[in-house]
């Protein structure tokens, strides 16, 4: 069966849209948990890009790289949330504006 | 069949037919499994169980369903309405979605995915959200605590159960459910005989996955009220309930497919023929089983106290005789029909046996406390599952690369795994025997 794929442009545009939304989320929200979730969104956008090109080139390396990115995202989310919990216990706040301990 | 429907749309029509059959039959089956559970519980407690609603309580599930549908729908005051509506739907949807990849027989499968087993595991892990969001949306401390505990338990035992499945996957060599059963047919042995520890790990893991006793702390009645289901009443509660029993059938189906040979009969490669014909002796087993049940029903029928119960027992006996006839008759039909009918029969028998094991374990063991539960999961079951995977892998390497005899390799690694399991169990006992409140 001949391989079929709609033009990779579609996937590139989708990936770009998700990436931009993720960047807006990181830069504009105050709540650190939503900032972390927006970072996950950015990583997903990159994954879509990788898998689309892996399909185009018929190469499985793109998918392997995407698996490593997912693994990395898991580790980062775990540590990030641990830090947020520890910070929350000390300062009772979840807002990025108020996490300014280094300021005097 | 292909004369009634144009062949071009068969791949689209048959899955739809199967899906409709499953969605229509499943709530009824879940209801009757509840009745079965109550009857088995009664039998183990030397009493009779529901006998009033319909002869032998056979209409009890219908009465329960009608009651649940007519109950008032209460939503707590400050509950998050959207989540409250959506949470039971998520549970039920994920439970039903898993049936898409489950093979009920050689011909009855909605979709034979290449990654069917992983798909079912993935969808089961999505069912956690139904619990967590439901507990959250109820805006009540008990619900939230019960939901978090239940989710923690589910996540822990999901890992253990998955690792238990990996040991059977090593032997099967493919993730497609059909291929796994085919591998058992090719090797002529059910994988439970080759990887029994994997089956044990999966059994314990699946009991915890479905929140059944002895792991039902999050939803037991004497604990956190009813855990995450506390604030749900009427139809919403029955959706959670349906999700739980549908999940039970799914894990039984996975265990059957991976460990118990799926739709294969016992000794699938033993072809002892009836002298002079092409019928195999072992293929007469379904009919013999049904005839035995029918004789038992006929023996019990005269002893029933009430006339309607006598009639129903006799009718059950008659039904079993009819089914025995159908099983025997299908032997003379085309091989595809015979495979389908007998395959379906063996699959249902094995699923029922696994569910019976669930019920039996429920009414035998006391409930685990939550910290004991988590310790069992993380400190006994997951190391045991990992060692088991290593053991099965070693057995395969010994047999393929170094040419050992397959049974010998498996026995040696099984002995090693059991040794490790005993070590783990012994090491685990010491902290629990110390008094709990010790300055912490």
């Amino acid at each position, binding site marked *: 069966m001949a391989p079929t794929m709609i033009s990779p442009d579609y996937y590139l545009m989708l990936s770009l*849209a998700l990436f931009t939304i993720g960047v*807006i989320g990181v*830069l504009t929200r105050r709540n650190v948990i939503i900032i972390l*979730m927006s970072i996950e969104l950015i990583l997903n956008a990159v994954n879509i890009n990788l898998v689309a090109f892996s399909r185009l080139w018929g190469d499985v390396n793109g*998918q392997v790289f*995407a698996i490593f990115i997912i693994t990395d995202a898991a580790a*980062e989310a*775990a540590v990030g949330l641990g830090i947020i919990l520890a910070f929350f216990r000390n300062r009772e706040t979840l807002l990025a504006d108020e996490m300014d301990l280094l300021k005097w | 069949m292909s004369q009634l429907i144009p062949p071009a749309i068969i791949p689209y029509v048959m899955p739809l037919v199967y899906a409709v059959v499953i969605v229509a039959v499943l709530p009824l089956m879940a209801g009757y499994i509840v009745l079965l559970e109550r009857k088995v519980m009664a039998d183990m407690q030397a009493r009779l169980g529901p006998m009033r609603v319909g002869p032998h309580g056979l209409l009890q599930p219908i009465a329960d369903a009608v009651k649940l549908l007519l109950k008032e729908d209460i939503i707590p005051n400050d509950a998050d309405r959207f989540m409250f509506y959506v949470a039971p739907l998520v549970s039920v949807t994920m439970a039903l979605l898993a049936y898409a990849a489950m093979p009920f027989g050689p011909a009855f499968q909605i979709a034979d995915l290449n990654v069917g087993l992983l798909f079912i595991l993935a969808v089961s892990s999505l069912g956690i959200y139904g619990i967590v969001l439901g507990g959250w949306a109820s805006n009540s401390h008990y619900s939230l605590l019960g939901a978090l505990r239940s989710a923690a338990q589910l996540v822990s035992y999901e890992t253990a159960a998955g690792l238990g499945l990996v040991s059977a996957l090593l032997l099967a060599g493919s*993730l497609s459910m059909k291929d796994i059963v085919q591998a058992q047919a090719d090797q002529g042995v059910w994988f439970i005989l080759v990887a029994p520890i994997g089956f044990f790990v999966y059994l314990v893991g699946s009991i915890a996955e479905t929140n059944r006793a002895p792991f039902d702390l999050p939803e037991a009645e004497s604990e956190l009220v009813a855990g995450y289901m506390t604030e749900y009443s009427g139809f919403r509660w029955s959706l959670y309930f349906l999700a739980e029993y549908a999940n039970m059938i799914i894990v039984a189906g996975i265990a059957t497919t991976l460990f118990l040979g799926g739709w294969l009969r016992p000794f699938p490669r033993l072809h002892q023929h009836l002298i002079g014909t092409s019928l195999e002796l072992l293929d007469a087993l379904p009919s013999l089983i049904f005839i035995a049940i029918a004789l038992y029903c006929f023996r019990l029928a005269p002893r029933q106290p009430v006339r309607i119960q006598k009639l129903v027992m006799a009718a059950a006996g008659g039904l079993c005789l009819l089914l025995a006839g159908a099983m025997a008759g299908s032997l003379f039909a085309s091989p595809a029909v015979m495979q389908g009918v007998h395959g379906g029969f063996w699959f249902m028998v094995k699923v029922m046996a696994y569910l019976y094991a669930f019920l039996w374990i429920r009414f035998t063991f006391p409930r685990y406390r939550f910290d004991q539960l988590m310790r069992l999961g993380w400190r006994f079951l997951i190391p045991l599952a990992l060692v088991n995977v290593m053991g099965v892998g070693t057995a395969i390497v010994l047999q393929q690369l170094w040419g050992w005899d397959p049974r010998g390799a498996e026995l040696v690694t099984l002995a090693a795994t059991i040794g490790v399991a005993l070590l783990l169990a012994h090491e685990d006992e010491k902290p629990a025997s110390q008094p709990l409140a010790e300055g912490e």
Partner: protein
Amino acid sequence: MFSHTVFYFFALLAVASAIMMVTRRNIIHSAVYLITTLLATAGIFLQLDAEFLFVVQIILYVGGIMVLFVFVIMLVNLDVSLRLVQFNHQRFVAGALALILGGQVFIAFRVGRGVLPHPVLRSMSPKNTEAVGDALFTHYMLPFEIASILLLVAMIGAVVMAKRRV
């Protein structure tokens, strides 16, 4: 035609859920919308014949990472956070910069299409899981081991960070 419809369904679901995620006031609703985005992404992976990645995305991302997020959100739940200002005071500049970044990348795509040679679609092995497994355990063995050590370190770090000091 059919694949276009499927793609548009998943793409619109992903983008709409992402926008909802970034704009909600209630953190749990944001988490649920991120879950829907991730599921739509998994659908895109399935459409791209990456069936192993499809299930890995669901098991790991939705069934693991998002459960972690939901747990932490429930543990640090602040009722008062629903009434605070959600967007910080650099939102207009940041939003504009993000859109400019997006526009730049978009222009790069359009310009690059004319410059670079358009690749020909090649076929991929139908046994996707076996191929990924082969690649992971032969060519990518070292990154695989490093990733497992990374996960171990992250596990220890998360436990240490989140433990209560007695």
